């Protein structure tokens, strides 16, 4: 067991866990931030995607001891304000993307990171950035359209 001070969604939070604990389980079990999902534990599905210093990362593959002072953002921390969602979340709602919904927070985190570094991605760039995120329900066409819509809404 060891104590870790984590900077999550702009707040300092502390946990006392085994240093090998993946960030995913720290978020879910210890900080009750359950929007970050467990899908495979092998970095193969993208359901656990969070941001580390703004870059998309599979939280199931990152031991909490490797986080240090780097800033973590989870789905719970991306809304524009307490009452307004992020433009990517809004696009997801407008295009009614979700079916079961389980993978969608991970999809959104990958999409937000993509648009941050590339506000106007081509179709091929979207596919490349998103291909690590599996949607078993097959909502890929809507996800792509939502990313394009969010890109338009933020760059106009």
């Amino acid at each position: 067991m060891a104590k870790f001070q984590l900077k999550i969604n702009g707040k300092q939070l502390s946990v006392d866990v085994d240093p090998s604990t993946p960030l995913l389980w720290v978020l879910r079990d210890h900080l009750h931030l359950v929007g970050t999902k467990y899908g495979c534990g092998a970095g193969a599905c993208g359901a656990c995607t969070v941001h580390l210093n703004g870059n998309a990362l599979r939280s199931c593959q990152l031991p909490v001891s490797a986080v240090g002072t780097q800033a973590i953002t989870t789905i719970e921390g991306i809304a524009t304000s307490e009452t307004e969602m992020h433009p990517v979340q809004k696009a997801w709602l407008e295009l009614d993307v979700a079916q079961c919904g389980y993978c969608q927070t991970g999809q959104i985190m990958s999409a937000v990171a993509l648009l941050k570094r590339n506000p106007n991605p081509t179709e091929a760039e979207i596919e490349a950035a998103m291909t690590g995120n599996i949607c078993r329900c097959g909502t890929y066409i809507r996800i792509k359209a939502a990313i394009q819509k969010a890109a338009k809404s933020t760059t106009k």
Partner: protein
Amino acid sequence: MTLLRRTKMEILKLHLKNAKRVIERTYTAPFLAHNPMEPISCFAHITDEKAFFVAPIQIPEMMKQNIVANLDIKPEQLEMKLARMGGGFGRRAYGHYIVEAGHISKKMKAPVKLIYTREDDMTNGIYRPTYIMTYKAAIDENNNVTALHVIGGGFPESPLHENRFPAGAIDNYLAESWELPTNITIGAYRAPRSNFNASAEQSFLDELAEAVGKDPLDFRIELLKKAKANPVGKNNDYDVSRYMGVLQLLKEKSNWGSPATKNAKRGVSAYFCHASYAAHVVDVTMKNGQPYVEKVVTAMDCGFVVNPEGAKNMVEGAVIDGIGNALYGELLIDKGDTAQKNLNNYRIIRHREAPKKIEVHFVQNNIDPTGLGEPPFPPVFAAVANALYKATGKRLYHQPYLKELNKQKA
């Protein structure tokens, strides 16, 4: 074998013997793991007063007697919240995990959440069975299909729906089943049995159409016209007019005959199950030897469409699920153990493999709503295989098709 079957069999043999040509083809498909995005889990808190669960379960009523009997609780003690499920596809119809969580909570005298890892879920699954189907057709000198013999089998169940199209459209028709036991657990998977039955049947019809020199879409409509005018047998379980309706709508909306892009090749397939009718035209291209489905046009008759936006989303998902499983879906078993244990080697379709476009057209009618979650799924497989034939010149008989394509190349 009943006398009727024996007679049918004798007549069938005679037709096959006297036929100008006989075409016989065998189709296979592997086990599939459901792999819903949310692995299996269940919350249980059993106390002296009540048995409380938060359960992801498709049909809670079906689990009641199981929970009560195996956990020694009274029916009135059972309380269950039905959590949203991160997918199911049939896997969450089988609620053994509720009983397991209950046992553990009882022993621990505490609230417990049972979690299966992805590996637990994939190695301890209730899989889509592995199936084999053989079709044998007799063709006379006038290019009429005079007889059809179908034998379907599997571990541990046959995929056959014996009264389904083309039953009713062919004068001499016999469908038979065999089953062999296995200790591998199997269960319902999105459109059980139909998901394979359709792939074999609709691939075979495509090959038959070619053999008799007809357009594959028109050939199906012709058979349906015959089934409407002079149906063979009385037990055919589909509505001929609705079946024909989706094919005609598809022909019109897909602009059949002209693929969306110039390099694309087209395949068609249609199927009836769960009281609804679905037909697809699939456009594929080959890029560096890899197949890619770039566009799909779907015609769907599910009666009155309750929520058109949600319905369209559901069909898109079923089409993408179908493409993924047709090309990549495979769970291999090696000495009782699954060769695939996680999503790094169990292949599920991903973003860049999904079509650029799926057009969904619903037949407009006021028939009380029928099924939608499953019906668009089964016919996708053969539409992909039939398009790949046009693109590569190779007929595909064994799923997953990508593996079969690569094998043929080697």
